[in-house]
C-alpha cells in the first residue's frame, strides 16, 4: 500500500468551486475519512484521486508518483461506490475477477485470488450467483472484495454504506475496520456521518465549501474543533459569540468565560460541548466565571441522554444546551420552567478561529 498526497487540488464546475486548493497527506496504511455535508467537495476530491474527475490544478501523488494526468485505468486504485456498481451481467466471481482480467491475470492464479478475496468477505459460497441474487450487505461485500483483490495502492470508498440500514451499516463498519487494519490498506473514506467517520478512521479531514477545515484524529475533531464550522458539524451544541473581557477572560452578554489555554488572538467565538455543561437547580449565588443561571425551556429525552435547553438570564437571546446521562438526572431540577444553573470547566471552553 502506498501514501497519498494531494497538493493544492482544485476543481470547479462552471463558476462554482467544488474543491478549493485542498492539500492532504495520507500515510501508508492509514485510514483517512473526508467528512462533511453534501456539496462540501469530499466526493469530488475522492473522484479526482480515482481519475474520474480531472482537477483544474494541483497534483495527486500515489506512492510518490504523480498521477494527476494518468488515465483512470492505470492508477491501480480500488474503489467502492455507494450504489455498489456491481456488473449485473456477471457472476460474483466474474465481478471480483474483473480487475485481474484487466491486468492479464488469468487461469488458476485468477481463480485462487478471487476465492481468497471472497473468503476475506466471507462469501466463498456465492461465487456463482449474480449480484441481483444477493442482499444489500452481501453486494457491498462483493464490491469490497472486487476493489481489494487487485491489491490497489489505495482503497477509495464513496459513502459505501449509505444505502444500508443502521444495523447492517454498523456490522459493515466493523468488518471494514478489521479488514483494512489486517491488510494494512491505505484507505480514503467519504461520508457525511460523523459517527461513522470516528468509528473507522485513524484521522478525519472535515471539509466545508471545498476546503479542508481541520485534519485530526477522531478525538481531536470531536473534542477540539478549531473552527466554528467544525464545532457545529461535530455537534458541540453550544457555539457562543464572545468579546474580550478583563484579564484574559471573555464575555458573552453578561456571562464571563475562561479557558485554560491562551489564544494568539482574542477569539470571536467559543464552543462548549453540551455533554460538558452541568445542569443543576438554581442557587441564586452571585455570578461567577463559567456559570450562568436561567430557565429550562424544555428537556428532550433521547434514550441514554437527555438534553436540556436553557434561556440564560444574563444573555436572554441565547439558549444553551446541557446534555447529561438520563440515569443521573435530578428529577427536581429538570422540570420545564424551572430555574436552573449551568456550569462548566475552563477545559471545556474551546476557542475557535473564524
Amino acid at each position, binding site marked *: 500500500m502506498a501514501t497519498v498526497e494531494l497538493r493544492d487540488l482544485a476543481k470547479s464546475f462552471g463558476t462554482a468551486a467544488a474543491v478549493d486548493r485542498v492539500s492532504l497527506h495520507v500515510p501508508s496504511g492509514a485510514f483517512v475519512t473526508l467528512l462533511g455535508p453534501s456539496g462540501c467537495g469530499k466526493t469530488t476530491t475522492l473522484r479526482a484521486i*480515482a*481519475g*474520474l474527475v480531472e482537477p483544474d490544478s494541483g497534483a495527486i501523488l500515489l506512492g510518490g508518483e504523480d498521477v494527476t494526468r494518468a*488515465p*483512470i*485505468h*492505470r*492508477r*491501480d*486504485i*480500488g*474503489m467502492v*461506490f*455507494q*450504489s455498489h*456498481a*456491481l*456488473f*449485473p*451481467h456477471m457472476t460474483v466471481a466474474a465481478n471480483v475477477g*474483473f*480487475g485481474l482480467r*484487466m*491486468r492479464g491475470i488469468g487461469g488458476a492464479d485468477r481463480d485462487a485470488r478471487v476465492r481468497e478475496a471472497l473468503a476475506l468477505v466471507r462469501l466463498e459460497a456465492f461465487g456463482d450467483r449474480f449480484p441481483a441474487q444477493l442482499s444489500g450487505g452481501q453486494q457491498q461485500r462483493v*464490491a469490497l472484495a*472486487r*476493489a481489494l483483490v*487487485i491489491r490497489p495502492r489505495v482503497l*477509495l470508498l464513496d459513502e459505501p454504506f449509505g444505502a444500508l440500514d443502521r444495523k447492517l451499516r454498523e456490522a459493515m463498519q466493523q468488518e471494514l475496520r478489521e479488514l483494512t487494519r489486517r491488510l494494512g490498506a491505505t484507505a480514503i473514506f467519504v461520508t457525511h456521518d460523523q459517527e461513522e467517520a470516528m468509528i473507522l478512521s485513524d484521522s478525519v479531514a472535515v471539509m466545508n465549501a471545498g476546503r479542508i477545515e481541520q485534519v485530526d484524529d477522531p478525538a481531536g475533531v470531536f473534542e477540539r474543533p478549531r473552527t466554528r464550522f467544525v464545532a457545529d458539524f461535530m455537534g458541540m451544541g453550544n457555539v457562543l459569540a464572545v468579546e474580550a473581557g478583563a484579564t484574559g477572560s471573555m464575555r458573552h452578554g453578561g456571562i464571563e468565560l475562561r479557558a485554560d489555554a491562551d489564544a494568539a488572538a482574542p477569539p470571536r467565538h467559543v464552543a462548549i460541548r453540551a455533554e460538558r455543561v452541568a445542569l443543576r437547580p438554581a442557587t441564586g449565588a452571585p455570578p461567577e466565571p463559567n456559570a450562568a443561571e436561567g430557565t429550562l425551556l424544555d428537556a428532550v429525552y433521547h434514550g441514554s441522554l437527555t438534553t436540556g435547553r436553557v434561556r440564560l438570564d444574563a444573555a436572554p437571546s441565547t439558549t444553551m444546551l446541557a446534555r447529561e446521562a438520563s440515569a443521573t438526572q435530578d428529577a427536581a431540577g429538570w422540570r420545564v420552567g424551572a430555574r436552573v444553573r449551568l456550569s462548566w470547566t475552563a477545559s471545556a471552553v474551546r476557542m475557535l478561529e473564524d
Partner: protein
Amino acid sequence: MTALHRLVVALVAAFILAPIVVVVAVSLTDSPIPEFPPRGLTLRWYAHALSEDVFTTSALNSLWLATAATALATPLALAAAYGLVRGRFRGRDAIQTLLLAPLVVPSLVIGLAILLAFSGMGVRDVGARLVGAHVLITFPYMVRTILASLARLDPAVEEAARTLGASALRCFVLVTLPLVRPGVVAGMLFAFIVSFDNVSLSLFLTNARTNTLPIAILNYVEYNFDPSVAAISTMLVAFSLGAALLVERLVGLRRVVGG
C-alpha cells in the same frame, strides 16, 4: 373506474382495432370480393397472394431494404447515443435535436428532397436512395431507444470498470454494451418495422420496376379489390405485431416511440 368510462374505452378500442380486424377477417372470406363478416372460411387468398410476383418480389425488396437500413443505422446510433450521454460539452441539446430532426420533418418533404438531390447528383439507383432515406428515418428511433437504455445505466458501473483497470474501449465492450443490448436489439427491431412498413417516403423513391411491399399493396388496390390484398396485409400485420411484441418485452415500446 365507472361503467361509462369502460364503455367509452371499449368503443375507442373497437375503433383502433376495426380496420385491422376487418382486414384479417376479409383475408379468410370465401368470396371474390372483400366481405365482412366473411362468408365461409378459406386460406386460398393466402396462396393467391404468395403466388403473385408483385408481392413476393417487393416483399424481398422490403426485407433487404429494412435489413440494410437497420444495419447501417445501428452503429451510427450507438456511437452517437453514447457520445450524447457520456460527453459533456456545449450544444449537447442542439445536437440531440438535430439527430431526432428526421422525425419532425414531414416525410413527404424528406422524400421529395432526397429524390431531387439524388437526381441532381446523378444518382439514379433506386436502391441507393431508398437505403439512404430509410437509414435517415430509422436512425432517430434507434438513437432514442439507446439513449433511454443508457440513461438507465448507473454511470458508477462504468466507473467501477475503469478504476479496476479497463480502458475506455474495453469498458464499453465488456460492460456498457452487454448492459444496453436489450435496448439496442429493441431499437433494431423497431427500426426494422418502421422501414418495412414505410409508405410515405418509399412512395417517392421507388419506381415501376423496384418496389417495396407496402407500395406494391397500395398499387394493387388501385386496380384490384380481391381479398388477396387482405391476405398479404394480414401477414404484414402479423410480422409487425410480432416484432412489436418482442420490443415491448425487451425494453417497452413506449421508450422507443417516445411521448
